[in-house]
């Protein structure tokens, strides 16, 4: 081998171990899942014994009432939590972006929920939502209100898991929004004060527009994440009562373990994957557009 072709090979040789891990750890399971989604496969069978049924898993899912219900719950859950978390997180960031005594302690406390393991969060909230000994109902009772069936009523259960998710994930938005805020050009904010902007006008005309690129990416990340939430809801309601809190990932896990239909579960996972892929591509394209615009601006400046 000549030194020339050696040196051309070098980067690939360095990449090879990582590529190997990627293929084994990522592509193989995904390929396996895609293949499995075309099978009528029971967990007691080996994968080779399962019947190949083409796209039937996918088509039957489209007509499946429970699957559609689960999709609706997921979309409802995700859109509500993301919007609420964005509002609260950005609001808190705007509120706490200042130098007051003890602010760093406050900030640390705010991000604590994010650091707790999801199972623990689920258990914690299940106890707090407990109909008789839970802290919420005890307080309600002390104040003379009727107790609320937080997790046992299909009307309340979704709201209850949404509250728990908001509690856990608002900090994520908060720290990213705060970081974005603190990197805003200070002099532009001062200029706007001199130009006569009140606090609100500063937020609306200067801060939010300048934070927007970060906020969009944050929102999309959170949206993608919220489609995959499992443990907290599993522990709190296990999808019930009825199907009221059965989000997609939970439905997938139950289809595989309880209904013993691995092919259907795989097909469902692929639907979820497609959904997430679409969101990721939107995010990717958005970043590309921003980069391209900045590049063309730079070019214009250099030429000008």
């Amino acid at each position, binding site marked *: 081998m000549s030194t020339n072709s050696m040196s051309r090979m070098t980067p690939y040789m360095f990449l090879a171990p990582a590529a190997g891990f990627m293929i084994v750890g990522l592509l193989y399971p995904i390929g396996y899942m895609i293949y499995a989604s075309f099978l009528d496969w029971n967990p007691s069978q080996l994968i080779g014994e399962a019947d190949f049924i083409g796209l039937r898993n996918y088509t039957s899912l489209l007509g499946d009432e429970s699957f559609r219900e689960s999709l609706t719950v997921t979309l409802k859950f995700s859109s509500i939590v993301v919007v609420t978390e964005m509002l609260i997180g950005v609001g808190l960031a705007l509120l706490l972006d200042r130098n007051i005594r003890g602010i760093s302690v406050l900030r640390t406390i705010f991000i604590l929920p994010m650091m707790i393991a999801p199972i623990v969060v689920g258990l914690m909230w299940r106890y707090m939502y407990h109909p008789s000994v839970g802290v919420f109902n005890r307080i309600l009772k002390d104040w003379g209100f009727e107790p609320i069936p937080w997790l046992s009523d299909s009307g309340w259960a979704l709201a209850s898991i949404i509250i728990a998710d908001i509690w856990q994930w608002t900090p994520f938005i908060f720290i990213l929004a705060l970081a974005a805020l603190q990197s805003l050009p200070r002099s532009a904010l001062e200029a*706007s004060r*001199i*130009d*006569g*902007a009140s606090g609100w006008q500063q937020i609306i005309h200067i801060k939010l527009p300048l934070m927007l690129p970060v906020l969009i990416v944050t929102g999309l990340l959170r949206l993608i994440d919220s489609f995959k939430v499992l443990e907290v809801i599993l522990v709190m309601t296990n999808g019930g009562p009825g199907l009221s809190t059965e989000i997609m990932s939970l439905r997938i896990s139950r289809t595989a373990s309880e209904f013993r239909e691995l092919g259907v579960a795989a097909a469902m996972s692929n639907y979820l994957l497609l959904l997430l892929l679409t969101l990721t591509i939107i995010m990717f394209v958005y970043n590309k557009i921003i980069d391209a615009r900045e590049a063309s601006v730079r070019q214009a*400046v250099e030429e*000008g």
Partner: protein
Amino acid sequence: MPNIRFDSVEKCYGTVKVLPPFDLDFEDSEFTVLVGPSGCGKSTTLRMLAGLEDVTSGEIYFDDKPISHLEPKDRDIAMVFQDYALYPHMNIAKNMSFALRLQKVQKKIIDEKVHRVAEMLGINELLNRKPGELSGGQRQRVAMGRALVRDASTFLFDEPLSNLDAKLRGKMRTELAEMRNTLDKNMVYVTHDQVEAMTLGDRIVVMANGLVQQEGTAEALFESPVNKFVAGFIGSPPTNFLEADLFEESGLLFARGEGFSLRLASALKDSLDTLSGRAVTLGIRPSVIKPGSEAPADSAQISLYVKLCEYLGAHKVIVTMCGLHEVMIESQSSARFETGVEAQFAIAPEDIMVFDKNTELRL
């Protein structure tokens, strides 16, 4: 336009005293330059005037109205920032009209004002661009335009030219000087560049270590600095300083230092009567040291070792040594000096500034 008055204004950050209480007056329609080395408190002074920094104690008055508790927007000021501080997400027209749009001025009037100012500054064709698409000089103009559109009574400039390259800075300086003549406004300008200060300011306030050292016209500061700092800060190349002791001989006053003895102006003598033997610092501007051959007979003579000559086109800077001290001399570029030898130079006694060595005040 209001008279601006600082009345024993003080600024502290926590326990750190940045600016001890000071008074300062800005006359009506005057271009005042605050100049000093970085950290001297000039920017803080401007920012207190703008309302971006709180005043720790004391009061700022616009005419007789106390304003230190007012928000920046209620002070009728416009400001140009060092880094221009344009709003990156708005185009130039939007940047310039931001204040007017907040005031809910009619769109027609806004357009008219923006176009008039853009015309004046020659940035008409940039109105639809974003700040990121402009060069430094263009951004500088837009920042200026944004302040002008406001039509405020007082304009504040915080080192507006320091981010430009030398050539552009000179050009913008000239334009600013022209603008000063056409606008009947109070202008307060902060810079660390004494050339900018001298060329622009009707009045210059020299600051150092949080204290106002001297204020006055460029000529006054150059001709009669009150202390060693001002003498050293104003003028380029800077004033040469030599340590010396005073002594009196046959009714004349002399300063004797390492390797020189210079006769001082007789006008000084009376006030120095009692000061014989006192330690002083002599301040000698590079432009007043002449080659010995050209000097009038009554001038003070000094022998200097010529180290090198810097040719600068219109003039020359000769670097010489007086003992261990470097002494700069400014001369015509046609003058010839041999390097590496001692040469005789002369200084008119009245051109020698004498400062007390301890207080650094001019005697």
